[in-house]
Structure formats: structure tokens, C-alpha cells
């Protein structure tokens, strides 16, 4: 794991976020330094917006959000370089028609020679035993394969942190398990937004969102129990 010399991983102070004239996050204050953070909450509770703040896809309307020590508003580029993002639907994340081309995309802007880029692509695919998919057309892959390709395309950039926005929602149980164990094996900092509560059992800390506010912040066991009680009432 990357050590940050005592700096917090996430540091939100008084963060408000307005989207389409609607306030979706209210006065968030949270500081974390754990390896794996889970984020849960009902639909529309603000957790996806929270995730998008973590790599600068959105920036706070008011307040200050620091990720890995960088202010999201002022150093969006640096934050993006260090924070990878895996979306719910890999079909929207994979933009090139062939697997290897897509994984290479992020490297293209970095002045890395072509041969080296190719080597990196093969290395990352071998790591997940997916080398046989290298020259496949993306259209022909299964949902689980697509999600693993999306993750590979993020990992090849060597981020320090990866944000997952409901990565298992569209997967069958078998593929969900593959993605889950891959996430647990990552050395990077992880923030995982999910409705799949079991995924979080071995996480270090879980935040519960409700109507744009953090209403619980605890160990997975406690936070999930609280969330279940709340959803039942």
C-alpha cells in the first residue's frame, strides 16, 4: 500500500454540491485514512455524486475536498492522475472497439513508446489471466469480462486510489465474486459505492448516505446493521 506520511486519504470540510439547481450534498465533513472505505445509501442519497467528487468529475460548490492531499478544485489533473474510476456499466466506460486498444487509451497521453505500452497492456491482462482477450472485439465479451477490462484499463495507469461506483450491480453471481475478490486483493486505496452489502464485510469503514448527508460512519458491521434498520422502518 502507498503510505502518505500521516496525511488523510480523504478530507472533506463543509462540502456542498449543487447539480442542476438541486443541492445533492449538504455540508459534508469526513476524514479518512483507512485502506478500504465502503459507501452505501438509498437511490438518490448522494453517494454517486460523492464518488464523482473523489476524482474531480464533479467539484464542490462550496467547501473544500482534498483527496490524497490534493484539493479537487485546484489540482483536478493531479487528482485524476492518482484516482482511478470504475463505473457501474463497463459498456459506457470502454470506448475502443478492441480490448488492447482500450486498455492502452490512458497511456497514450503520457509519451510512452508504443512497444512499452503494448508490454504494459499484456502485463496487466496476464495478471488477471485475460491475455486471451487481447485482440477480441469488446462487443463480444461477457459482462464480467467487460468489467475486468474496465478495471484493467484503470489499473494500468497505476493510480493510488480507485473509486468503484456499483461495479457488481450488472453482474451475475460468479462474475460478481471474481470482481469482489479482485477488489479485495488491490493494494490501492479503495472507495466502493454499492448496494451489495456483503461486499463490504471485510472493509475498514463504511459511510451511510441519506438525502445528501452522511448519517452513519462506522465499522461495516455496525453501519450495515444501522442501514438495514433504517431501510426497514
Amino acid at each position, binding site marked *: 500500500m502507498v503510505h502518505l506520511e500521516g496525511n488523510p486519504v480523504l478530507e472533506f470540510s463543509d462540502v456542498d454540491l449543487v447539480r442542476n439547481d438541486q443541492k445533492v450534498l449538504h455540508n459534508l465533513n469526513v476524514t479518512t485514512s483507512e485502506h478500504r472505505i465502503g459507501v452505501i445509501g438509498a437511490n438518490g442519497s448522494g453517494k454517486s455524486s460523492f464518488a464523482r467528487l473523489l*476524482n474531480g468529475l464533479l467539484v464542490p460548490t462550496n467547501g473544500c475536498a482534498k483527496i490524497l492531499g490534493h484539493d479537487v478544485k485546484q489540482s483536478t489533473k493531479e487528482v485524476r492522475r492518482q484516482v*482511478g474510476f470504475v463505473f457501474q456499466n463497463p459498456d459506457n466506460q470502454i*470506448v475502443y472497439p478492441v480490448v488492447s486498444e482500450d486498455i492502452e487509451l490512458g497511456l497514450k*497521453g503520457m509519451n510512452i513508446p508504443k512497444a512499452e505500452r503494448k508490454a504494459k497492456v499484456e502485463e496487466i491482462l496476464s495478471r488477471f489471466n485475460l491475455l486471451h482477450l487481447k485482440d477480441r472485439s*469488446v*462487443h463480444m465479451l461477457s459482462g464480467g469480462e467487460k468489467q475486468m477490462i474496465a478495471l484493467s484499463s484503470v489499473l494500468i495507469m497505476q493510480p493510488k486510489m480507485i473509486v468503484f461506483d456499483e461495479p457488481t450491480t450488472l453482474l451475475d453471481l460468479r462474475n460478481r465474486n471474481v470482481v469482489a475478490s479482485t477488489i479485495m486483493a488491490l493494494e490501492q486505496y479503495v472507495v466502493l459505492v454499492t448496494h451489495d452489502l456483503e461486499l463490504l464485510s471485510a472493509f475498514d469503514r463504511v459511510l451511510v448516505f441519506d438525502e445528501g448527508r452522511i448519517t452513519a460512519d462506522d465499522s461495516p458491521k455496525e453501519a450495515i446493521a444501522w442501514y438495514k434498520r433504517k431501510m426497514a422502518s
Partner: protein
Amino acid sequence: MDLSFYLHGNSILHKMPTWSKFALLVAFSIAFYAIHDFKILITKLALVILLVVYIKVPLKRLKAMFALPLFMVLLFSIFSFVVNDLNAGLLTFFRLSSLVILAACVTVTTKIEDFMAFIENLLLPLSFIPFIKPATVSLTLSLTLRFIPEIFKLGMDIKEAQAARGLKSNPIALIVPLIVLTLKRADDISDALDARMLD
């Protein structure tokens, strides 16, 4: 969905750089309009037919490759004959048929990625226009290729869903949701691109 006409082979036409094939085609088409001598025109047609044999186009591909373009050439030659005279009709036929056959030969001997690289180089002098930066052009072309099968599948899904509800095939009821769903997806795709591109 097979998205390529490329014919594997080892001929000179396969090996020629893409730009030279294009230069050849342009030269050929300019030369055609300067020539009125049927002896030369017939010789040229014979030469391009020999070229088809030389690059070893399999018999079963011939129809897909030439049937429609040549049918159109024939149609327009007849048109020219009717509104002008026999001479004009024959000129049209010999000029266009050899040109179309030559163009088809270039198409089947050029890999799509080679052609795309050629287009990107061709646009290089225009790269001062923001949209025509080589990286942007290549990204846009790839994105389109990536999403053609997806959108086609979406169209088939919409048709199926409407058929399941007992609705008759109606172009408006198909195209409206196809476009709306695709435009809505653009948000997610551009978010994902922004998250992944570092420049």
C-alpha cells in the same frame, strides 16, 4: 457483425502504402475524363479486370463486391444513352466501370486501420482546427466503431419490446427511443472518458 471487406493476400496492391493507392486512384480518375479513345478505355477496363484476378478475389466475393456498383454504372450508362447518344452511354460505361472496379480493389487490399492512419495523416495540416487534432479524430472514429454494434442491438431490443406488446413496426416508435436512450448514455460515456484521459 463483420465490419471489414479486407481480403488477405500478398499482392503488390496489398503491399503498396495507402497513400500511393489513393494517388493511383486519383490519377486514374482524372485520366479517364481526358480520354475519349475507346481503344484506350477498353484496354484500361481489361487491365483492372486483370487486377481483380491478380489480387485473387474469390469467386463468391465477386458478387458482393461488384454487383451493386456495376449495376448502378449500367443503369447510368443506359440513362446517358437515352438522354444523349450511344457514344456518351458507352463512354460512361467504360469510364465508370473501370474506376469502380479499381476503387473496389483498393478497398479490399487496404486494412481499415491503415486507412484510418492515412486519413489522420491527411488531416494533419488541418490540426490547427480544434476538432481535427489527430488524437481527437482517432478517438472519435474508434468511439463510433465501438458503439455501432451496441446501438444496432439497442434498436433490435426496442423492436422486440414493441413486438412483445403487440405493436406494429413503426419507424418513429423505433427511432425516437433509440436516439433518446443513446443521447442519455452520452453523459456516462463522456464522464468515463474524462475520468480516463489525463491531458
